[in-house]
């Protein structure tokens, strides 16, 4: 029996019942929902979930087709490979960037993370009035010069007129 992994994305106009309908369709096919995330992006419904089971992609698409029948939701299904677990090592950080909105803030700041081989592991951006806000969680590789990265990020932020704060991601081991 196949235990393929599928990525299901649902995007579009928000209304009550989207998650209920999506998960009911998947449950009827015996699919198990693994990791998922859902949020509203300026009011737009945005969900991505990974599900695993014996159904094939075409069957999943047929099961979820009623969701898209009104034409205001896009539903996509595609098979994905299992990813290896992230390698141990490195350090975890939280980055906040905020300031007046303009184009290029995210790219200017995140480029400095990429330049040292850092990896963004979670990202939220929000625009409210003139305030642009970015909060990212990131992993820096073993041996990265964190002070230098923080300075590079702050300098890049200043160039686009915003402020940046990099701090360790704290986890209390109990």
């Amino acid at each position: 029996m196949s235990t393929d992994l599928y990525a299901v994305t649902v995007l579009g106009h928000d209304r009550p019942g989207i998650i209920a309908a999506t998960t009911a369709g998947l449950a009827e096919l015996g699919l198990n929902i693994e990791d998922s995330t859902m949020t509203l992006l300026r009011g737009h419904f945005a969900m991505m979930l990974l599900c695993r089971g014996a159904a094939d992609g075409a069957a999943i698409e047929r099961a979820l087709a009623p969701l898209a029948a009104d034409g205001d939701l896009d539903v996509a299904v595609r098979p994905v490979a299992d990813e290896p677990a992230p390698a141990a090592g490195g350090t975890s950080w939280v980055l906040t960037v905020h300031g007046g909105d303009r184009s290029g803030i995210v790219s200017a700041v995140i480029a400095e993370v990429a330049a040292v081989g850092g990896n963004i592991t979670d990202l939220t951006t929000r625009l409210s009035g003139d305030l642009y806000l970015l909060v990212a969680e990131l992993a820096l590789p073993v041996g990265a010069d964190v002070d230098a990265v923080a300075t590079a990020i702050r300098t890049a932020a200043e160039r686009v007129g915003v402020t940046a704060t990099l701090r360790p991601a704290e986890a209390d081991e109990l």
Partner: protein
Amino acid sequence: MSSERVAAWTEAELGVPGRVLEVVRAPEGVLSARGADVDPTAADIVQLAADLVATMRVSPGCVGLAANQVGVGVRMFCVDVVEHPKTRTHHGTFVLCNAEVVESSRNEKAREGCMSVPDFTGDVKRASRLTVRGQLPGTGETVSFATDAFEARALQHEIDHTDGFLFLDRVAGAHAIYPRQTYL
């Protein structure tokens, strides 16, 4: 005892009526710059102290206000957490100049808001046991006192303001920011 002195302090000591000032919002630059140290006995600083208290008083749910938040880049703020349900120890209404954290321990995470960031709240980990040092406006006395729980959180939030940091700079992660629904 400094703690008793701070608890006994009221804005009446300032001897000037406070004026209600406009609260500025991010991304105003004054909120992201460290304020200048102040002379707590200077007449303009005494007036600003009264203004901060007056502005806090008329702002629903406001438990603290820093000078940066009324557009003045100096290191001063007021606090009053007396009515808040999460308060344990408190020192009534007070204003501190040039304040700094002396000791902190027992971090706890809680959701914060800010009048200068009206559209978001965020989860911030802060010390729940705190000792701070600062100067009282008017007399310029240096006071040092310990507090806990919500007053400790409010003090750290306000001291952050004086250093040019918002709670946004302290949030716990990418999913620790929330569209605003109610005030802190």
